[in-house]
């Protein structure tokens, strides 16, 4: 037969274990909340870095193609290799092509030209925007063809 003292000790030990577990879980939940925030931030940064990398590669390729062709449609055709894009022409003579790079990013290529006596200097603006329309990254490239004659439409 167990003594009353042993029974009381066992009861106290059981309660202490219960209290200890509650304290451990409390600390664990606080620590995990902090760690989960860090994980979410690192995940977001990794995604952002991937997106910026893709944008830089795409912008570089567009600039390389355009510097040789000086034609926005040809640039888009080569860059997208048959994927769909939207083409717009503005009253000031500038042309714009836009397409989706991924679910969140839209790419906009806008071509304008400056006419000089020697020939046209064509400028391509490459910009990347997110769903809300905010610019994520933009760059500009130009192509100058002194041997090319200036067409009437370009002069206008």
């Amino acid at each position, binding site marked *: 037969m167990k003594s009353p003292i042993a*029974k009381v000790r*066992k*009861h106290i030990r*059981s*309660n202490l*274990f*219960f209290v200890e*577990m*509650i304290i*451990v*879980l409390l600390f*664990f*939940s606080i620590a*995990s909340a902090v*760690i*989960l925030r860090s*994980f979410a931030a*690192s*995940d977001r940064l*990794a995604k952002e*870095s*991937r997106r910026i*990398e893709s944008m830089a*590669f795409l912008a*570089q*390729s567009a600039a*390389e*193609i355009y*510097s*040789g*062709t000086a034609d926005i449609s040809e640039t888009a055709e*080569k*860059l997208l290799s048959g994927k769909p894009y939207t083409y717009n022409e503005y009253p000031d003579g500038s042309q714009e092509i836009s397409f989706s790079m991924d679910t969140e990013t839209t790419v906009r290529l806008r071509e304008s030209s400056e006419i000089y006596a020697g020939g046209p200097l064509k400028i391509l603006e490459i910009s990347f925007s997110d769903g809300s329309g905010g610019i994520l990254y933009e760059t500009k490239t130009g192509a100058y063809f002194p041997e090319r004659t200036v067409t009437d439409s370009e002069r206008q």
Partner: protein
Amino acid sequence: MNRADSKRLTDTVSAAGSMTLFLIFAVCCLIMIAAAASAYGRISENYDDTFNSAAAVRYVTNKLRACKGAEILSGNELLLYDDGYKTLIYESGGTLYERLLSDGQEVSASGGEAVFKAEGFSVSDCGGGLAEISAEGSGGRTFSAYCRIPEGGRTD
């Protein structure tokens, strides 16, 4: 219910509660470890891509821009011409190698210095003086960039 039965019930509930809390703690630990492993995997994958495949593509495009002339020998061999020497860049077994050759030296894709880890590295002529350089990253991601091929520099 007498006092002894009530005490036994209290002890049982306390023990069961402690065990449940311990189980919750163990499950939470497992979830946290899984989340940490997943976050680490993503960061590591991104790091590998940035410092291997993407860096290899950037390295080759920069070399291509800096040289006097270039020739695509095969799908994974590129020969760059400079004053008095040539540089052969080739991929073998998932690694990108670079080999310096003097003018007149036989060109062979061996004995080069390993530069990057680049699975599926390929270089192709896209016409119009453009080359497409691409490499496969982890998770099936492909890094690809267009670059203009310089036309001069060839001595043989």
